[in-house]
């Protein structure tokens, strides 16, 4: 059963070909077998099987949803009552949340069965998953390669089919980049679509929850249970519920695909460019028209992001003081010393670095020059997307400049690591829905992702455009060797 999509599992459950308990058992065994990937941080079979039994009872009573009994794993950025919630940080080791994140709660109410919590970069800061306090996640396609980050555990788990779906979060590309590196489908919705309540905060004006699956169709099914207005999140968007599967069967005749020339510059590796151009050619065979567009200031996304994200991070992470929860140093002189030592010990190097950048750009005398200036350039970039969407329906291009890199290759050079988010950051800054779908393989048989972006609230259209490609190709069905 492990090679089945969410859509197929849903049908098998509702027609009683398989029970939720059987399915949960299959995946729990697979998690155990692929423990070496280090994708999971917390697995509690008793909790999972209890949820699965409840799902079976619901299906027997006939009041299930299409998601009832389908297993899912959650990135360890979402707080959960029944599994530890650590944000992959030493700071939150063993933390048991008094409540579930809204996303977790909604998917639970739909009947999804939680397999456990997934490794990620500490507080979702990173592009390779090397910033986790709990060790690296391996890329199932090539154990020498990073799975991408920050949602590396989510990507690896779906790629290795040890979870049919996994929640993830995006701040500057943390869903699309690992989805591309690990060869799975990953989508972030419009900012404000998914509740941020219970998502451990990194950069609040950018953070957005999304999903990783084996296909766009699966992502659409899960979005139906996952997204929606939440009064507990002050930036949640009030809009009527919608069916995200409604455009899956819409054909692509006449679809205008904008191809930004800035995404095909000198930094783009030839293997990635080749796979992406092939995918674009496939789209023309499906009836779409390609058109050149320009996002002139897209490259400024990186400096904008590395002001805004650290600024908001330094503010959000000030709550960790070793008083109410989290790590507390063993020896200290007084309260201030206790807080300083607890934070120095509890946070890893990248988190400390970003807190310091953020503290500086928000400090007296620099706020306007850095933070406000970055917010203004952010608007320039967002406006360029609006200009582009005057002429095209969706935007397509590469997700990353290269296939997955090796462990340690960029770990010592923060700036080189930051540049790996060149193509994903602009969409995050604008707050538009964006996704990555598998479109081939590059150097050393490592996966390549195709990035698709649409305008605000056009997730259904975006998922349809991806699904039509997946009907015509089988890249998304390929599994890593040894799966």
């Amino acid at each position: 059963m492990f090679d089945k999509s969410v859509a197929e599992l849903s049908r098998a459950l509702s027609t009683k070909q398989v029970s939720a308990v059987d399915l949960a058992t299959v995946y729990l065994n697979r998690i155990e077998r692929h423990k070496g990937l280090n994708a999971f941080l917390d697995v509690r079979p008793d909790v999972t099987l209890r949820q699965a039994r409840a799902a079976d009872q619901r299906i027997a009573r006939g009041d299930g949803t299409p998601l009832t009994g389908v297993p899912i794993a959650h990135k360890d950025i979402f707080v959960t009552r029944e599994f530890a919630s650590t944000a992959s940080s030493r700071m939150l080791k063993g933390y048991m949340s008094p409540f579930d994140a809204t996303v977790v709660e909604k998917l639970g109410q739909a009947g999804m069965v939680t397999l456990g919590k997934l490794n990620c970069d500490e507080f979702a800061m990173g592009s390779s998953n090397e910033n986790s306090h709990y060790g690296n996640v391996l890329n199932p396609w090539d154990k020498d390669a990073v799975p991408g980050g920050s949602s590396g555990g989510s990507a690896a788990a779906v790629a290795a089919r040890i979870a049919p779906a996994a929640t993830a979060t995006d701040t500057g590309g943390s869903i699309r980049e690992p989805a591309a590196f690990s060869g799975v489908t990953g989508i972030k919705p419009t900012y404000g679509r998914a509740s941020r309540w219970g998502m451990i905060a990194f950069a609040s004006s950018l953070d957005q929850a999304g999903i990783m699956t084996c296909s766009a169709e699966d992502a659409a099914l899960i979005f139906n249970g996952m997204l929606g207005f939440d009064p507990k999140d002050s930036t949640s968007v009030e809009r009527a519920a919608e069916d995200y599967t409604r455009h899956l069967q819409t054909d692509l005749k006449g679809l205008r695909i904008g191809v930004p020339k800035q995404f095909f510059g000198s930094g783009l590796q030839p293997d990635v460019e080749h796979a992406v151009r092939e995918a674009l050619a496939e789209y023309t065979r499906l009836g779409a028209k390609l058109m050149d567009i320009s996002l002139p200031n897209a490259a400024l996304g990186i400096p904008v992001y590395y002001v805004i994200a650290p600024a908001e991070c330094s503010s959000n992470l000030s709550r960790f003081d070793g008083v109410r929860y989290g790590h507390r140093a063993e020896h200290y002189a007084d309260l201030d010393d206790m807080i300083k030592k607890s934070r120095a010990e509890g946070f890893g190097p990248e988190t400390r670095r970003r807190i310091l950048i953020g503290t500086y750009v928000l400090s007296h005398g620099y706020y306007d020059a850095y933070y406000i200036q970055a917010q203004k350039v952010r608007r320039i970039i967002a406006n360029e997307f609006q200009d582009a969407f005057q002429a095209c329906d969706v935007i397509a291009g590469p997700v990353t400049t290269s296939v997955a890199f090796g462990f340690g290759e960029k770990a010592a050079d923060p700036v080189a690591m930051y540049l790996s988010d060149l193509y994903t950051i602009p969409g995050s800054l604008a707050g538009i829905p964006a996704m990555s779908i598998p479109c081939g393989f590059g150097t050393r048989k490592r996966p390549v992702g195709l990035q698709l972006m649409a305008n605000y609230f056009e997730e259904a259209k975006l998922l349809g455009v991806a699904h039509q490609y997946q009907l015509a190709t089988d890249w998304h069905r390929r599994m890593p060797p040894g799966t």
Partner: protein
Amino acid sequence: MALTSSDVTRIAHLARIEITEAQTEQMLVQLNEIFRLIEQLQAVDTNGIDPMSHPLGGSQRLREDVAAEHTDRESVMRNAPASQDGLFLVPKVIE
């Protein structure tokens, strides 16, 4: 503009993160590289552009100011590094 090690010490104090001398030197090099990247923004003409704090604009919604029971005390207190009688323990702050 380049940071100095005393800037790093000051920022680390503001951020309440203890930092050793060796860490300060390493951090200084890394922060200066990052700020070289960030400095590109100073050259952008942003006259007449409004800062963007939320992708969809608008103001933040306010809820009714009513008391509500959110959770039980025990489930909150169980994560405290040190507590006594339902209170968080901290080092003495008032002599």
